[in-house]
């Protein structure tokens, strides 16, 4: 007889954890499955754990004492944007923007933080006859009369449930299988790469001018990233720094520069080199795909009795320089749990999806991801005009005016405008470069920060390789179909044969042909090659694959 639980939650990141905690709180028997050996071992973030004033459904709703108990890094009190042109940097204080509607804001390292969350989840779920099982990869859905009735895994017998909550992240296999989102569109993704750097706590506090549990965030944009649309970030942790770059995936592909090289450009830029040289040491490299929730908002993230939450449902907001993902997932998790509890109470389980969609629609999540349509169109037109105007001397002389400068920086600090900021080269590159060029100060430093080659970065990661069972297969190995993998995969490089993807020349019938070859051993399971190449992409089995130490 098949096993049955009231609820199965797939993935124990912040979204899945919040859903499970809320279910358990309401007496629901909930089974949580996570494919890492310890939840968090696969998870990374390039963001801040926010709580918002306009919703009660933040992490403290399910874990009221989390600020006291959780392994958090630092409370982010200051937020700066650095507009960069060459060695010139204009710093803009965006603390006001960061604080807008903010209840709390913490930097976190996900491996530690999610592991802690998962313990809370396990204890709560045990009380209602469920619990957390890690090292289990959910591979598919159980269908009954054509409708979703549970999950299949690589490790266990099929598990039936009244409700399945898919919180399996940006690379959700459940979402792909149930065709809830179009996976294959590079323009609806960001790709982030990150380095965690260790630094002594006292040095860190001195250099970043923080003390106690206070921390600071710095963002970087401008011409150091060429034409790639995106930017860099730095968050202070307790005794480490999270430094990364995030770009729209289509521009990573079209620019053809390898992702780790953007990170290198940031790390080596004088504004960072001055702080990092001789003090900081890279301890972990990581990467992930990030859904662009504004471009790919899913209005009805459910199918039958499967509800999708968090990154899996594209619930990620890039409000200009403010990045919010984890808190949207947490809110959605709580709403999904409440929808199930309510549907069950009314004896109308089939209504659970519609209830969840309605709750999302009434929440800030829809409002912020859909944004103000009119404002978005207007800004989109304005920035495309801006792109043309920016090349003229008129624009330069206008920006020179303190009045215009004040206007531009004022606009940067407006949350409403940021929320509706369009994805444009003007916003990411042109305007910051211009600001820095005209109003920036030259950073003069003799200090150099030496970045690590990609081979060394891979060598420092831990893997439990599923030998003989590659989880990715290249379906078409021509450079036309899968060549983008070589440059866009964050653990591949043209000049390295140690990465996942490389281009090799072979002689076939006396003719030289180029082929894309794959070695999944260094894979960090980001999903990039599933989007930009012709591949058959699955997650490794439970416990297998990359295992982060910081995340």
């Amino acid at each position, binding site marked *: 007889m098949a*096993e049955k639980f009231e609820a199965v939650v797939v993935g124990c990141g912040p979204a899945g954890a919040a859903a499970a905690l809320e279910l358990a709180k309401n007496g629901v028997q909930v089974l949580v499955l996570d494919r890492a050996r310890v939840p968090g071992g696969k998870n990374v973030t390039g963001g801040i754990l926010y709580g918002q004033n306009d919703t009660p459904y933040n992490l403290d709703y399910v874990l009221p004492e989390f600020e006291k108990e959780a392994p958090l890094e630092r409370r982010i009190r200051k937020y700066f944007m650095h507009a960069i042109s060459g060695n010139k940097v204009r710093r803009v204080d965006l603390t006001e923007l960061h604080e807008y509607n903010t209840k709390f804001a913490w930097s976190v390292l996900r491996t530690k933080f999610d592991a802690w969350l998962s313990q809370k989840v396990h204890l709560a779920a*045990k009380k209602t006859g469920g*619990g957390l*099982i890690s090292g289990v990869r959910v591979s598919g859905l159980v269908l009954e009369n054509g409708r979703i009735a549970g999950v299949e895994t690589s490790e*266990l017998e099929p598990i039936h449930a009244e409700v399945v909550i898919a919180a399996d992240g940006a690379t959700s296999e459940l979402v792909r299988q149930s065709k809830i989102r179009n996976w294959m569109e590079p323009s609806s993704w960001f790709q982030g790469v990150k380095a965690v750097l260790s630094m002594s706590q006292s040095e860190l506090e001195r250099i970043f001018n923080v003390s106690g549990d206070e921390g600071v965030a710095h963002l970087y944009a401008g011409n150091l990233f060429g034409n790639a649309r995106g930017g860099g970030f730095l968050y202070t942790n307790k005794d480490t720094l999270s430094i990364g770059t995030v770009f729209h995936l289509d521009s990573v592909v079209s620019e053809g520069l390898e992702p780790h090289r953007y990170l290198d450009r940031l790390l080596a830029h004088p504004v960072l080199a001055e702080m990092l040289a001789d003090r900081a040491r890279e301890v972990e490299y990581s990467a992930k795909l990030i859904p662009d929730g504004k471009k790919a908002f899913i209005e009805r993230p459910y199918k039958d009795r499967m509800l999708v939450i968090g990154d899996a449902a594209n619930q990620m907001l890039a409000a200009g320089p403010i990045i919010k993902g984890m808190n949207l997932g947490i809110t959605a998790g709580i709403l999904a749990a409440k929808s199930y509890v309510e549907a069950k109470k009314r004896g109308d389980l089939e209504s659970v999806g519609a209830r969840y969609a309605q709750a999302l629609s009434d929440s800030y999540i829809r409002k912020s991801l859909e944004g103000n349509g009119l404002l978005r169109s207007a800004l989109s037109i304005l920035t495309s005009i801006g792109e043309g105007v920016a090349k003229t001397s008129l624009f330069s002389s206008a920006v020179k005016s303190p009045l215009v400068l004040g206007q531009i920086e004022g606009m940067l600090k407006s949350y409403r405008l940021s929320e509706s900021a369009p994805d444009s080269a003007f916003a990411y590159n042109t305007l910051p470069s211009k600001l820095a060029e005209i109003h920036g100060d030259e950073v003069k430093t003799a200090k150099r920060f030496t970045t690590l080659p990609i081979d060394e970065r891979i060598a420092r990661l831990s893997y439990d390789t599923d030998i003989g069972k590659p989880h990715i297969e290249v379906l078409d190995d021509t450079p036309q179909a899968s060549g983008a993998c070589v440059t866009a995969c964050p653990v591949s490089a043209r000049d390295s044969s140690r990465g996942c993807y490389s281009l090799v020349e072979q002689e076939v019938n006396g003719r030289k042909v180029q082929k894309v070859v794959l070695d999944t051993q260094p894979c960090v399971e980001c999903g990039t090659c599933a989007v930009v190449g012709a591949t058959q992409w699955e997650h490794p089995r439970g416990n297998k694959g990359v295992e982060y130490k910081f995340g």
Partner: protein
Amino acid sequence: MAQELNYVVLTKGVPDFREGKVVFKEDNTLNRAATPTVMNPNDYLALEAALEAKVKYGGTVNIICMGPPPYKKVVQEGMQRYADHLYLLSDAKFAAADTLATAEAIRLAVQKLGGADIIFAGFKTADGETGQTGPQAAWKLGYSLATHVIRYNLNPEAGIFEVTRSIKDELEFVRGPLPAFLVTDPAFKSEYRTATQRLKLQDYREETKKRAYQFEEFLTIWDAAALGADEWKVGIKGSPTIVEAVDPIPRAPSERKARVINGRDRDQLQGVVELILERRA
């Protein structure tokens, strides 16, 4: 099921032969006093097998170990893996027992427990390597015996066990009546295929780790009198085996000169690389 199943796991304390733990005398024989005693490594698999039975079929796991009072630490080690109750058979009258006399003590202890549905034992002990004690105990108790078990199933209602034995290059499937004495092969592997089993397994592991801290609350020590042992059947008096001589196993003489290299030190590693290149040339 009429009655809860009862499992016994046999464990033995052996010298810790791991490098860095084991101490040798000048004549290269084992310095028993200076070498710590640990649970026989193969017995871990017997405990895993008993835990699998508890998860799948319910019941109680009892560890039985024979040895002097300091062997409490050995049964504690067992409890860290899994046990509900611990029994240490400890009496000067049990000392210097051969395999037959040990099997007799085990028989008495199992019978004092009211018998067992399954007795699990590991494959050989690291010190004696005889592999006789288990089968002799099974024979004395009249239980079905299966050795080299790599997997097993129970049908408690029908009173039947089924095992897969790994014998050389072949697998043998054996079915027999309970009670049974199962000896786990070093290749034994537990299998948990349902979520409920995995949840129970986690719970049991958590519980036993907590219990192991205060293991003495779960420990019973039985002496020869408590077991009603016939002193001519246990200990040295009950041991027909005569050890004529023991060949000292000489420690392999060290012929190579070794230097420890710090793998994180690039200069030292460079030296290694240079040496390899030099020798190859």
